[in-house]
């Protein structure tokens, strides 16, 4: 990573921190503590299952909201407020700016996820009184959740490069929902015929495959996650993110700053 990208990324991280993005952690802490106390009181045997399911789903949703709402503003806000003029009149190429902003938000989300993960492990320890070897696959689930954030960030950036912030948020959120059912969509595509078949197949492979990236339930049920899936998901995310960012750069490169 070149130095300028690193500087832009770290300034983006600083902005997120000063804009109090990490304050969401307070809400998360309250939620996970309340849930832990509640679950600890009522259930026997399935505490672990419930805490992992609930905790990781919350991690994913909290991060998703940040990825979308910060993501759509990353570049469009800088155009709107004209803070970009004094950046792009320096030896900074437009693609470097986009990539730097992306890494800045990605970093913010990793830090945010780290603290939320501490909360999940804390809750797990509270209800189960110990960790087991199987709990280590929670790390894989968290890793996959971060991969989802990267894809959504890149998509939010892409959408906001040509449409309004509100529409971008709607697009990104819709893709998150549809992507979560990517498996079902692919299943449907194989069953359909004629035009529907082609449209459904196209859509199924175009939307981000969040089905494959969501292993929360498998981890909660202590099913093993294959290394093959880890590798596959990593490559998939790299490819998908790179494509979305390239699209954003292509649009942004031609754009007149108002």
């Amino acid at each position: 990573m070149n130095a300028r990208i690193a500087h832009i990324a770290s300034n983006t991280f600083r902005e997120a921190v000063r804009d109090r993005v990490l304050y969401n952690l307070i809400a998360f802490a309250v939620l996970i503590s309340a849930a832990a106390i509640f679950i600890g009181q009522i259930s026997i045997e399935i505490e672990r299952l419930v805490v992992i399911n609930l905790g990781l789903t919350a991690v994913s949703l909290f991060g998703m909201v940040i990825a979308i709402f910060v993501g759509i503003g990353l570049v469009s806000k800088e155009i709107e407020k004209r803070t970009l003029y004094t950046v792009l009149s320096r030896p900074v190429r437009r693609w470097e700016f986009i990539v730097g902003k992306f890494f800045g938000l990605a970093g913010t989300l990793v830090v945010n996820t780290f603290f939320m993960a501490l909360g999940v492990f804390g809750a797990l320890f509270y209800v189960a009184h110990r960790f087991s070897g199987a709990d280590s696959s929670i790390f894989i689930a968290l890793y996959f959740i971060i991969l989802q954030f990267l894809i959504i960030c890149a998509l939010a950036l892409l959408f906001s490069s040509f449409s309004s912030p509100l529409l971008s948020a709607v697009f990104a959120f819709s893709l998150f929902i549809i992507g979560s059912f990517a498996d079902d969509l692919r299943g449907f595509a194989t069953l359909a015929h004629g035009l529907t078949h082609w449209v459904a197949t196209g859509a199924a492979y175009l939307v981000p495959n969040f089905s494959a990236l969501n292993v929360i339930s498998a981890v909660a049920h202590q099913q093993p996650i294959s290394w093959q899936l880890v590798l596959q998901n990593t490559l998939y995310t790299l490819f998908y993110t790179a494509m979305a960012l390239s699209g954003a750069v292509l649009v942004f490169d031609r754009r007149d700053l108002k």
Partner: protein
Amino acid sequence: MAAIEILGLEKTYMVGFWRKRPKRALQPLHLTVEDGEIFGFLGPNGAGKTTTLKMLMGLVSPTAGTARILGKDWTDPEVKAQIGFLPEQPYFYDYLTAHELLDYYGQLSGVPAKDRKNRVEEVLQRVGLTDIKGIQLRKFSKGMLQRAGIAQAILHSPKLVFLDEPMSGLDPLGRRDVRDLILQLQQEGKTVFFSTHILSDAEALCDRVAIINKGELRGVGAVEELTKSVQGKVEVVWQGTQVPASMKALSAEFHVTGETVRTVISENQQDAAIDVLRRERLRLISIIPLRTSLESYFVEKLQHSQTTAGTSA
């Protein structure tokens, strides 16, 4: 070597939400700014000054034309390390302090880490922003933002500085500071290209000026030369709406506004003009020698463009 060579840059914006219509903001512009000059880019609001500067900075892409800056192709990233830019009504990351902002910009411009702290202190001092440690830019007044803007434009010791309306938003003292600073920059061997609609600033500072109106270049030259050309001219104003035929021999342009007609003629034809008006029984309102300032030249140039625009429409 010329610091800036603008070779036919032009810009047509597409405006309108649904059915886009072209809007010409700048006619093909040819302009050369020499090394070490203070060059004023003059024109009323909407003339196309900001558009020109934004194209030179690569913020807006030209419809046609190119430019060379410091002898290199203007899109060359190396060029950008050697130029500074103050945008019109600048706005910055408001969650940063001025020190943080300048440090960040220093990083982006490639100022070495060991020099950065000193450079930042030095430029803040230079633009008169002291005692602002720890204050975020969101609490800055318009004048302070303008000063911060000038600081970031000269932070990395650029060879060439572009300033878009550098005096706007400043009080009289602030304006004087900026004037002094521009002169200092020239003494340091830098080239300064600044836009303004305030003539006295240009007159006080510039070696040469270009005058632009409605996207079209109206005149370029040294301030003395331009003002010389209006010496010995008078403005004649009379009541009425018509121009007598014999008056047309004295001047080519007449401006009818409401119940008065104005024109500019040379001083030695003043008596002839009075005779004509008397003969035609038109009431003379005033004859005023045109001030030999940039202002009169400017006004003349703008009036010229208005009449030509009026007749061509």
